[in-house]
């Protein structure tokens, strides 16, 4: 199986869930992910050997998502959490809203898209130390606002 296809099968759902807050719905996010992988399939020769395939495809998908958001004329969507239902997940939704969008994106990449620290660093062009620090801060901020029992 081709590496791009393998990545797609492993990560499609995670990518879609991580992008849904960016574009405003899981449906649109799925469409963006489809397009991103189609581009990756065509352009894979341009991937540098040292680059992470997941991070590279994510960058394509994320930029497509930003473009889609611009198409919608949405200005305030950076704060959108429309993928989360505040009635079903009030604590988490409220807690996530307290995070700045960039930190929230790191959290989504980690927990929705299942990215490693290295992949997040590569995808967002930041250092692994920054990823670790950001996640630590985000965890602390979120856990302060979340009930201690596991969600259900």
């Amino acid at each position, binding site marked *: 199986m081709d590496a791009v296809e393998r990545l797609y099968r492993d990560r499609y*759902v995670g990518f879609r869930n991580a992008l849904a807050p960016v574009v405003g719905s899981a449906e649109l996010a799925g469409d963006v992910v489809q397009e991103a992988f*189609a581009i990756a399939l*065509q352009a894979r020769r341009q991937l540098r050997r040292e680059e992470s395939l997941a991070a590279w495809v994510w960058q394509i998908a994320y930029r497509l998502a930003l473009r889609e958001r611009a198409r919608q004329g949405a200005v305030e969507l950076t704060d959108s959490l429309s993928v989360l239902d505040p009635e079903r997940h009030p604590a988490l939704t409220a807690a996530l809203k307290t995070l700045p969008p960039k930190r929230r994106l790191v959290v989504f990449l980690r927990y929705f898209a299942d990215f490693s620290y290295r992949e997040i660093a590569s995808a967002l062009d930041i250092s692994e130390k920054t990823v670790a620090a950001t996640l630590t801060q985000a965890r602390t901020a979120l856990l302060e606002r979340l009930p201690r029992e596991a*969600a259900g």
Partner: protein
Amino acid sequence: MSDILADYFDAIADRTDDSDWQDVRRRAAGSRRPVRSLLAAAFVGAAVAAAPALAFSAGVQQLVGLRRPAPPSASTSWTRPRLVAKVTGMSFQKLSRYGLPRVTVTFTVGEAGKAPGTGITFGSYFLVDVASATGAPFLPVLARAYGAHGHYEVTTPVPPGGIGSIKIAGFINHPTGPSAANGTFWIPVVIPVQEH
């Protein structure tokens, strides 16, 4: 140590797997869009110029305002043909599963007053910019058209608010090969009024 946040996200994650690899392959194969255009579309608004392998040509960068025009070259003696584009059809479609609307625009290009295809040298190509009717934000994405002998077709997303204008740019190749006379420029577009 277990990660309590992971438990939270596990609980809320939408696990619906609506992936469709065949759809990805169809998009990759069926779009026939060149890698350069696709990447430029995906990366527009980011530091395009910083990644030469992914960037548009200098002429296209000038068109979308990413680059200042180069000083006029004194070395050219070739006169660029006076081309006119005429939109011959527009059809709207929902290519994606989730209904992102797209439009296929067909058009002809040729020298003013002459048949389509006249004045178009080998290696030339055309790019289409579809702008919003309401002026809604829409990043300057130029889609490459395909065709031959003066007849071309492009499929591109419909901007929010509908289509306000269509601009067509041509990269006209110098008849004898690469030259300073090559360039990308907007072509006057004729859109006939259609009765519905």
